[in-house]
């Protein structure tokens, strides 16, 4: 029996100790310690611990805020030199004699987010998994000014970081792709009107620096100007400040409220200077900058010095390559000519602004000496897309769709030799490859072709040769199907073509035939062809015969395999479908 009683005693003791521990834990909370330390530092008698709760009332909501249970000295200037969390809050409005923000009324979480109810640091700062609003430390809290103040434009003292972010957003042409209601409208990229309400700060930072971190298929470029901390912070603070839910409506906003400017000043008269300003994203004679082409596109000055971004193709020759009409249409809606372009649409440009840009772009007249050798020509005209190793991995190619041709694949170069010259002279429709006939002379083109062929075929085996097959003609009773599978007698039929396409092509080319099938992203360079790109498909060089050969034999040096198991009739059906589908896609 005594053994049992001893066990009971030990367990009772253990239970007693653990209960005592739980009560000590409940009594001995951080805020008690902080308040004791605070009164000791002040040299005053400790009046007893108290949860200092602020019920922040605004017309729409009231928030529970207990932050000042630990941050006891927040509004006491005498606590200025104390350590965190006891120290006084630095002044919010620089230079103001008395700060208009009364923490006894508005609390802390209104600006700094976090979990206002909690009393334990980890909890209160919103650092636990899944908490929607982790704390905004220090300057980041400027993202919350917008909850009470109007911040669309103008200046609010103390919100410098936010305002820098706003400038960057305009200057760096983020608005070109992203919509923020009242500033821009574009369907290119996710809307950011409520970015601050939807995403937390760290998510925004991550998405700015590494767009693919949160969305693998993001098309957003990795900008090279966002890698210093201050820039990222400014931009993220600005985006965090884009919140639909506000604590104050416009008419009840507190003192310091500045009405946004309602109308933008627009450029009314075309000029090269205005074009230059638009191109650079700089303000022009009072007009707010709504350009910033230079953030993505580079150009060469007269000395061949390259400057600008490397997200879109270089624009040095673009007026000579494309012509005025194409360039204007491309600016207003880039998808008209290149269906897979990621360039933002600048629909709200007026004629004067377009003319200004065209005028500015026309001032580029850099050109190489026509007697230059192949390497030099390639390095000037081709390298930015096709890459130094001719592998189609040029500096801007990642953002182009379709990718630039990879010349390091000798099979392709051997198979399609005769197409080169034509492609260079007339360009490839629906892609980033422009026509060079107005820039390069016949001789230069020949030099280039020779150069590329020579480089590409240096190490190529000599025995590779592409088969030659003719396009079967409907009603040709003489012709045996390839591998003698039957006789071709009919023209291609769209209805049968749809079925065949769905059965054989969609995994790469996609159900819509836009080249975005489920396997497309797993394929190696180049990506599957977008088969509703009408500019591409309607060129003379993309004949039915070429399509037939590409389907039957595959495309050398690409992931497109041969389809010799298909009957000729089926291939013709598919071609008929592709043609009809392209027409329809218009």
């Amino acid at each position, binding site marked *: 029996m005594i053994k049992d009683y001893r066990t009971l005693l030990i367990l009772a003791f253990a*239970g007693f100790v653990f209960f005592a521990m739980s009560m000590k834990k409940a009594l001995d909370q951080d805020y008690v310690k902080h308040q004791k330390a605070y009164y000791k530092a002040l040299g005053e008698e400790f009046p007893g611990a108290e949860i200092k*709760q602020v019920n922040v009332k605004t017309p729409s909501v009231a928030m529970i805020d207990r932050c000042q249970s630990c941050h006891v000295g927040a509004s006491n200037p005498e606590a200025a030199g104390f350590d965190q969390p006891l120290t006084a809050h630095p002044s919010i409005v620089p230079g103001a004699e008395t700060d208009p923000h009364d923490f006894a009324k508005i609390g802390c979480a209104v600006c700094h987010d976090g979990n206002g109810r909690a009393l334990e640091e980890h909890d209160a700062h919103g650092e636990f998994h899944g908490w929607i609003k982790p704390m905004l430390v220090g300057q980041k809290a400027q993202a919350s000014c917008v909850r009470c103040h109007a911040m669309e434009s103008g200046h609010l003292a103390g919100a410098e970081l936010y305002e820098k972010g706003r400038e960057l957003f305009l200057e760096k042409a983020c608005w070109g792709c992203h919509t923020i209601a009242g500033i821009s409208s574009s369907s290119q990229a996710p809307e950011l009107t409520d970015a601050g309400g939807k995403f937390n700060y760290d998510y925004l930072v991550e998405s700015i620096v590494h767009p693919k971190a949160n969305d693998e298929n993001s098309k957003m470029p990795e900008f090279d100007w966002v890698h210093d901390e201050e820039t990222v912070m400014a931009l993220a603070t600005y985006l965090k400040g884009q919140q639909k839910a506000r604590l104050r409506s416009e008419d009840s906003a507190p003192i310091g409220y500045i009405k946004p400017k309602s109308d933008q000043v627009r450029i009314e008269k075309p000029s090269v200077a205005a074009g230059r300003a638009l191109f650079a994203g700089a303000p022009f004679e009072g007009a707010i900058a709504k350009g910033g082409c230079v953030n993505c596109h580079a150009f060469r000055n007269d000395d061949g010095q390259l400057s600008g971004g490397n997200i879109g193709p270089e624009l040095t020759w673009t007026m000579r390559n494309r012509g005025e009409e194409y360039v204007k249409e491309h600016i207003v809606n880039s998808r008209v000519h290149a269906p897979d372009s990621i360039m933002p649409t600048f629909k709200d440009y007026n004629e004067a602004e377009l003319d200004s840009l065209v005028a500015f772009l026309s001032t580029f007249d850099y050109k190489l000496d026509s007697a230059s050798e192949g390497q030099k020509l390639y390095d000037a005209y081709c390298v930015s897309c096709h890459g130094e190793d001719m592998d189609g991995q040029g500096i801007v190619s990642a953002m182009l769709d379709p990718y630039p041709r990879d010349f390091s694949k000798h099979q392709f170069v051997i198979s399609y030799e005769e197409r080169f010259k034509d492609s260079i002279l007339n360009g490839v429709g629906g892609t980033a490859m422009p026509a060079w006939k107005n820039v390069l002379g016949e001789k230069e083109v020949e030099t280039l072709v020779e150069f590329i062929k020579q480089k590409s075929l240096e190490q190529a085996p000599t025995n590779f040769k592409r088969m030659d097959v003719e396009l079967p003609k409907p009603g040709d009773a003489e012709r045996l199907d390839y591998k003698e599978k039957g006789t071709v007698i009919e023209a291609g039929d769209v209805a049968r073509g749809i079925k065949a396409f769905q059965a054989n092509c969609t995994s790469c080319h996609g159900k819509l035939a836009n080249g975005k099938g489920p396997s497309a992203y797993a394929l190696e360079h180049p990506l599957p062809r977008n088969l509703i790109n009408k500019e591409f498909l309607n060129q003379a060089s993309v004949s039915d015969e070429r399509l037939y050969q590409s389907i039957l034999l595959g495309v050398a040096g690409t992931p497109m395999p041969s389809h010799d198991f298909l009957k000729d009739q089926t291939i013709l059906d598919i071609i008929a479908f592709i043609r009809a589908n392209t027409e329809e896609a218009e």
Partner: protein
Amino acid sequence: MAKEKKEGKSRRELITIGSAFGLMGLAAAGTGGAIFKYMFPVVSYGTPQKFLIPVDDLPDVGDELVFDDMKVVVRRHSEEKVAAISLVCTHLGCTVNVVETGFQCPCHGSQYDSDGLVVGGPAPKTLPWLEVKVVPGGQIEIDTGTSLPENTFFEVA
């Protein structure tokens, strides 16, 4: 001998079990206390003691205005003299009605004159007059937690 040993054993048993139950009792008492503390409120979510009203909302001179949700009547004596009287009956906390003769409590029939002095019924004390303060931003702050003698007016000019 044998008997002594047995008794020794039983005494040891008794001490052990006694201390075990003692500890359990202590823990239970502590738990009881903890549960009391668990039930006791530490913060209030209710209406704050102080509230703000814009100067423009003040009644005209010689007039008074009842703020229902704060249970306060604001009285304006002159252009700059303003006072606030609590409408909470000093008897058992009902809200009194403003009547011709002063204030009347609907619950137990306490009667006050227009200055809040008790004239009838069970009410033990005068209705409290409240502190009125001018705060920046064109507003005045009324503190319902204060209790001042009757006819305490404040400058709001």
